[in-house]
């Protein structure tokens, strides 16, 4: 399996990268960690004329929690994020970053690359929806910040303009009493998630759900917020009935496709089950329990 020939560029800085990509046009592709792009090139599913290697750009690997925002640099590899203090403080980030594919892919694949790929089944897009993240970009027209809901416009499609690159991702630091969980169902580590559920919530005294966000992966062309499911929980006392209602709402809003991994109907049931699992873990984490997350492999 050999990629078709391409020209290789190694910009010295972000500006140069943007300049190269804008000028070379759509047949040029940015290469970050390459964990999405290279398999595509090897299968010759894409044949860009030019690759602009942004993997070496300085200052884009960072994770910080400042001024009420958590911000992660676009070139931060998944594995690196999973070991960061951010992941320690916010377990749902560890669930996601530490559960993407396998350790080898996590060494190379980056959060910026993953969110730019906008795969409807992949982990970061679903997680970033759960956290109501913003995507910060730099391009020929300057810098801008796009809400995740607007950033991913369709399956595999983003609001990025030619030459525009993701520079970082940020979301509000969860308030005290918060907890979350992200669980995907996949056949094996290196296989794509079939469906996934992210739950991030804040629980007040008396087990009352103060705030909650739920997002689903593999449930449509782009990650899907389960707004109704959130409404079933927000402001209510968390009990199994509330969760059952939320699970019903999750199953109702999801539109997974029929494929070799199962029927749409089955996947909706699976999402239901995953929500209950994730909800359970998230609730316990709100109460500061330490629980190692794990996806469902089978």
């Amino acid at each position: 399996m050999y990629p078709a020939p391409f020209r290789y560029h190694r910009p010295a800085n972000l500006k140069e990268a943007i300049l190269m990509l804008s000028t070379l046009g759509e047949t040029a592709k940015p290469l970050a960690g390459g964990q999405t792009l290279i398999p595509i090139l090897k299968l010759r599913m894409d044949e860009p004329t030019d690759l602009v290697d942004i993997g070496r750009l300085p200052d884009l690997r960072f994770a910080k929690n400042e001024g009420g925002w958590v911000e992660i640099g676009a070139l931060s590899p998944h594995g690196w994020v999973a070991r960061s203090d951010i992941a320690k403080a916010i377990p749902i980030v560890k669930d996601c970053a530490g559960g993407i594919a396998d350790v080898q892919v996590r060494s190379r694949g980056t959060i910026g690359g993953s969110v730019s790929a906008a795969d409807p089944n992949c982990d970061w897009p679903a997680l970033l929806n759960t956290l109501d993240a913003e995507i910060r970009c730099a391009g020929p027209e300057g810098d801008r910040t796009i809400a995740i809901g607007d950033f991913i416009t369709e399956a595999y499609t983003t609001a990025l303009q030619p030459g525009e690159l993701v520079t970082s991702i940020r979301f509000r630091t969860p308030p005290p009493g918060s907890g979350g969980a992200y669980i995907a169902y996949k056949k094996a580590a290196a296989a794509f998630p079939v469906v996934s559920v992210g739950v991030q919530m804040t629980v007040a005294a008396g087990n009352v759900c103060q705030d909650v966000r739920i997002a689903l992966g593999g449930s449509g062309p782009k990650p899907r917020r389960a707004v109704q499911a959130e409404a079933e929980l927000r402001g209510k006392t968390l009990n199994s009935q509330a969760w059952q209602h939320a699970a019903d709402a999750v199953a109702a809003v999801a539109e997974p496709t029929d494929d070799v991994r199962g029927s749409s109907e089955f996947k909706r049931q699976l999402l239901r089950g995953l929500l209950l699992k994730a909800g359970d873990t998230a609730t316990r984490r709100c109460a500061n329990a330490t629980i190692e997350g794990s996806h469902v492999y089978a």
Partner: protein
Amino acid sequence: MPDAINKVTIDVTVNGRKFRRQVEPRMLLVEFIREELGLTGTHIGCDTSYCGACTVQLDGAPVKSCTMFAVQADGCEVLTVEGLEKDGQLHPLQKSFSEHHGLQCGFCTPGMLMASHALLTDNPHPDRHAIKKAIAGNVCRCTGYQNIIKAVEAVAAGAKE
């Protein structure tokens, strides 16, 4: 296809030795290791980054060398299975794989060794779950993974003493 392809000169340290080579940008790291350097212990088992037979370490981190271009390894240190043996002494993992029958056909073995070596470097006392996670991206078609886990556990237990 672009009309002219630039070749790229890269400097890569492999198993402690420095190599400077001029490569086509599309050359994968695994091809560089196998074809340019003649180190054929690193294997290719799939096209889609699933099997891990090509696992090497890049600056200490396990990577799938079939899902990286050689140009991306420019300036980096690569460790392959051939670099595990030191001064004629097999690495304890290599010995343990043999002792516990953690290999049969041997095709996945270099990748398994490099993935578990990276784990033990990072965490000398992994539990069974951590071992499984560390080799979750490596396929073995022969052993059912049982003896591979035992082999890594044995080295981890030895490290505790």
